[in-house]
């Protein structure tokens, strides 16, 4: 479904005129669609993207704004040139490793660590020549700019967007009880979506273990 189709379904459920709504305007409906996608992205954390950033010489720290405008939080960092994955670490562990860790620079960064909600660091820092980092990150949904734009989330989850839009319309009309019913259903649905996501992840991990054991058995 594109944005127009989503909006029309929301307006239909709110008993509004689809072409010229009166109480619940198109702008409000569009904002509700965007907000629903954001909440789903926050709760389910399944939107993932990848970006390359240049680490200039002498750099240790980076902001997520350098990675992408839609970067919610980095989840994986690679040294792109060497194809080496940087292992996550915490700052106290860096302190334990070496008390002057801030001053260390090297050809190949080994670890990465969180610095703030919108910043992260690599260790050791880069030297002359710099390097390129590949950052996998959880992403916010892109803003739907036109009616023909389609949300990046799958169609099953798009139903939740309609549900949220209906809730949003009712809560604006102070229809508290009906709005609460819808919001509860919305929350329950995204838990289902979360369940699907977690199940897929579990299956993936489980299958990896099975395959790893199978291969190991062959070797033994």
């Amino acid at each position: 479904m594109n944005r127009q189709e989503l909006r029309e379904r929301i307006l239909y459920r709110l008993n509004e005129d689809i072409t010229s709504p009166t109480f619940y305007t198109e702008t409000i409906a569009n904002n509700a669609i965007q907000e629903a996608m954001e909440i789903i992205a926050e709760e389910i954390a399944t939107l993932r993207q990848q970006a390359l950033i240049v680490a200039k010489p002498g750099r240790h720290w980076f902001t997520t704004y350098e990675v992408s405008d839609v970067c919610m939080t980095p989840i994986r960092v690679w040294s792109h040139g060497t194809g080496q994955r940087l292992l996550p670490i915490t700052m106290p562990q860096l302190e334990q490793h070496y008390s002057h860790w801030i001053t260390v620079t090297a050809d190949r960064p080994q670890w990465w660590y969180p610095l703030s909600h919108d910043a992260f660091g690599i260790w050791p820092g880069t030297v002359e020549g710099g390097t390129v980092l590949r950052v996998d990150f959880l992403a916010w949904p892109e803003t739907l700019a036109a009616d023909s734009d389609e949300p990046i989330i799958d169609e099953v989850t798009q139903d939740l967007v309609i549900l949220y839009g209906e809730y949003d319309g009712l809560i604006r009309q102070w229809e508290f009880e009906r709005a609460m019913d819808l919001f509860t259903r919305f929350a329950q649905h995204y838990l289902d979506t979360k369940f699907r996501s977690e199940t897929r992840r579990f299956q993936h991990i489980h299958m990896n273990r099975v395959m790893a054991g199978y291969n190991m058995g062959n070797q033994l």
Partner: protein
Amino acid sequence: MPSLAALVDDILLRLQDDETLFTRAEIVRWLSEAYRQMSHRTRFAKTFSTMDMPPRHTRAITFNWERNIGSGSWRKWTFTNQNDHTECTFLWEVQQAGGMDSPGSGTVAVSNLWELAYASGSVDTHYRFMLPKQDAGIIHVWHDHDFISSVTAKILDSTETAWWYIGGSEPYVWLRSLGDAHSFDVYGIDTEYFQSFDVSTMDMGNARGWFEAGENTDTYAPDSGIASWAYAYAWDGEPESGASGAISGVGKRFTFGPNEDGNYYTHDWEGDTHPYLEAAVGTTGFESGVDLEIGLMRSGVSSSRQYWPSHQWQTTGTLRQAGKSENALLVYHDVYAADITGEETETPMLPDPLRKYLGYYALSILFNRQGEGYDPALAGHYELRAARGFKFLQAFGMIQRADQHFVRGGGQRGTREPPLPQLPADYPRAPWLR
């Protein structure tokens, strides 16, 4: 992303009010509180601050009441005595005022701590640093890149020494201050004075660059966001009178003049009425060796070090302070957001998609206000929505949570069972498991 003004509009729509019951200014005040509370309670924002050793303060005060007037950081350099009636400079003055028969010789007294670099004799003081106004708690402190441990007053007390003026060494412990909020103490003081940077022409307006006090060995370049000239031109008015109309971008004039005859020229000998113009003129910045210095300085770049804006979320104004971590304190701390002062204010600390929670927080208060718009049910609902945002933000800073299997550390090492799906306790059981 809607602006803050659009958020106010949306709040008024949800309140079904046309500014009769609730004014826009009131809504902005609650949005400001929401912004402050969200950032303070969840501690999602962290940054670095550098501080010169010995510490520098905006002003030295004599009396306690002076703290309440003026702005900036302060240091009270006197000893309060006799129930606030007397402020003494030296310890012997306290003894004298108290009627002791043979007052001691006392120690050195300084009004600013940097004076210790030039003082001799024992010092009856320690270093107290003032933190930025928006500080919400220290996480780490380094001195000259060496990690300094935190300590409690109870542990220091157990040493049975006059620990409040431990001197003559490198700093080795820090203590959340026994003084006012937003300050901390450092023990083991190094009285040698290191000034990190002078911000050039700071006393004459806006900073255009900085230099390192003492030695200027580091190379840097101002990072103004405009990396090159868009065009070159010969005479005033030329960019506006081009054949295709005005040219956009920032241009560089490659001529001198006009001279007394109204002419423009490219070399000094051409316009001998201007003997002070000696350099050859190039048509672009790199030819003439002129740095591009346009606009206000916001940050610096260097190939040998990283300049990190300690107020990276401040989107207005210019550079007012520059510090470095060598021979100085580097503090890593939580910070919370500055006030929202108007609908045109930005909320750079908060990612745009999370701005909706500011609105929910404001709505929870506005619907709860006694009067015509009072609706406890809606207030409670929006409070829950805002609380969900708080919870999300708390997890927001823990950016490794999605990568736990690779976290280095004792608890994560070795072979572990893969985690089971985490579901809430009230999630319905699958029917086949009944």
